[in-house]
């Protein structure tokens, strides 16, 4: 969690310096979701994520340097500089992207699961999406289709209470997403998304159930984003007091306190972790700084398998 936090704090800093451009959506405050969930999955499971995916990518094993280089737009980024912050990909890690059309990744996850089922593989496809995505038709279509065809998709809703500036209660009719999936016969549960241990346990159980039964499941992880939606957001839609209230539940502080209280770690351990993380981030920035720009001659590369012109 600390790795994500520090990577993103650095990204924000680099954004201010205009090293990183475009849209940048920070995950700060929500780290327990990505970390707990990703650790509960197996290496050969599939992951489909959103544009708020730096944390997922990092925990999944994409090196911080390649993530940072991608945000710089460099050729040594994990998508060759063609994706940027919102479109991190890794074929080796079965990380099927950062998707920036809200809800657009859901059908992709359905199809990946269909392929696995048809090929007789026991993979789980974990699909991350926000509370806003549950408004989209594709969310409902995907629940229906996975339930109908019994496809091994684990739907992971990262409910951070807002879709950009629209509060949850202002965009979800009965103010509770967890009631939706059962209407399609999909098992559904809500978990505290600020508690990394609870997240890991719940996602592990859900993923193993999906693996065993081949049927979809839905988990809502209740969380909160501490930062603005993106770097363009003046946060007119919520009060500072509300943000401060949620910050008391900071997933990193919570874990730290619990681990210290249980004497699982010491203050010295924490300092070591901080130092290691700082070094990793520094090296990541260096990796990005030293990366090459893709040649403009290669602009059209990867549009098709073979050049058409």
């Amino acid at each position, binding site marked *: 969690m600390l790795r994500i936090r520090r990577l993103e704090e650095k990204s924000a800093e680099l954004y201010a310096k205009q090293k990183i451009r475009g849209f940048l959506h920070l995950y700060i405050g929500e780290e327990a979701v990505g970390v707990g969930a990703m650790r509960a999955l197996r290496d050969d499971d599939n992951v489909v994520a959103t544009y708020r995916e730096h944390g997922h990518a990092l925990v999944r094993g994409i090196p911080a340097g390649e993530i940072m280089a991608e945000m710089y737009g460099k050729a040594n980024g994990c998508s*060759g500089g063609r994706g940027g912050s919102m479109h991190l990909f890794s074929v080796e890690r079965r990380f099927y992207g950062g998707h920036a059309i809200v809800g657009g990744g859901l059908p992709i996850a359905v*199809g990946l699961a269909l392929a696995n089922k048809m090929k007789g593989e026991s993979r789980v496809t974990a699909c991350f999406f926000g509370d806003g995505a549950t408004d989209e038709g*594709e969310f409902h279509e995907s629940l229906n289709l996975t339930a*109908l065809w019994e496809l091994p998709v684990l739907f992971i809703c990262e409910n951070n209470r807002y879709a950009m500036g629209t509060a949850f209660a202002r965009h979800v009719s009965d103010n509770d997403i967890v009631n939706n999936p059962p209407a399609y016969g999909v098992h559904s549960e809500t978990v505290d998304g600020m508690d990394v241990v609870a997240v890991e346990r719940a996602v592990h159980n859900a993923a193993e159930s999906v693996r065993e039964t081949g049927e979809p499941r839905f988990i809502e992880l209740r969380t909160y984003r501490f930062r603005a939606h993106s770097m363009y957001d003046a946060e007119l839609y919520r009060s500072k007091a509300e943000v401060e209230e949620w910050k008391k539940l900071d997933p990193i502080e919570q874990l730290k306190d619990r681990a210290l209280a249980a004497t699982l770690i010491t203050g010295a351990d924490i300092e070591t972790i901080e130092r290691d993380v700082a070094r990793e981030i520094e090296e990541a920035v260096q990796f990005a700084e030293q990366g090459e720009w893709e040649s403009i001659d290669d602009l059209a590369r990867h549009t*098709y398998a073979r050049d058409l012109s």
Partner: protein
Amino acid sequence: MTTYREAIRTALRRLLLEDSRVFLMGEDVGRYGGAYAVSKGLLDEFGEDRIRDTPLCESTFVGAGIGAALGGMRPIVEVMTVNFSMLALDQVVNNAAVMRHMSGGQFEVPIAVRMATGAGKQIAAQHSHSLENWYASIPGIKVLAPATVQDAHDMLLAAVEDPDPVFIFEHQMLYGIEGPFDPNATLSSPWKAAVRHPGSDVSLIAYGGSVHKAMTAAEELEKEGISAEVIDLRSLRPLDRPAISASVSRTHRAIVIDEAWKTGSLASEVSATLAEEAFYELDAPIARVCTREVPIPYAKHLEDAALPQVPAIVEAAKRSVGNG
């Protein structure tokens, strides 16, 4: 002689038999036999796993096809008609077309999507669109429009084999046509235009359903002593620009026939290509024979009046050669 519909079915069967990664999915492709009866009988032969009836959710089943292609399958997705494909455009434009590039070449989407297109059956404005040009304007996908029975078969084989997303537009008036067909013929490249009727006075450039109208027009022009060359574009993306220019370099006159609305049509793209690449070959202004800019009406006489028809092509050609 075989029908267009049977030729597609023959290709589907062959693909399903030869490659276990291939499956067909779409609305009513199984029990019903396909809205245009293309997949009739395939459910019995291949079972529900490989001939999948989907719920009514174009966006999600096209997206699932993209996902399955990413996952190593070779899905053939049938969207009943282009009209309903509007609900899946997001998946096409924002996922299928960009995945390879946006991932820096790590992921590819070898999906084939088939759909019926075009007007002519008096099924009015919501069932008669020709929107191939929308698709043909998107880098990252390929677009085919088989006009002949042989192409209906061969292009599907080529589309499934291709590592990129390929969209096939089957004109709804063509499913019943009969034509020569050899299931074992050597496959010609689907990405090249074809000369369907050689001629020296004027080029009639068309694709899909309009090719047949252009052929009839060429025969009529012949009776009046005008030799028309009919070019079937076949592939709408990539567009075989050299073939278009080469034809006009022979005839020095061009009529472009397209069932889409004129504004922003493929006919516009072909015309602009000629203006850029064969301007000095032209002896007369380029003419476009397209659909009138109205929603396609239901009444037969109105529908006929809205669509490109043989007399309009003949007239445009005559005007072009200077005796109209």
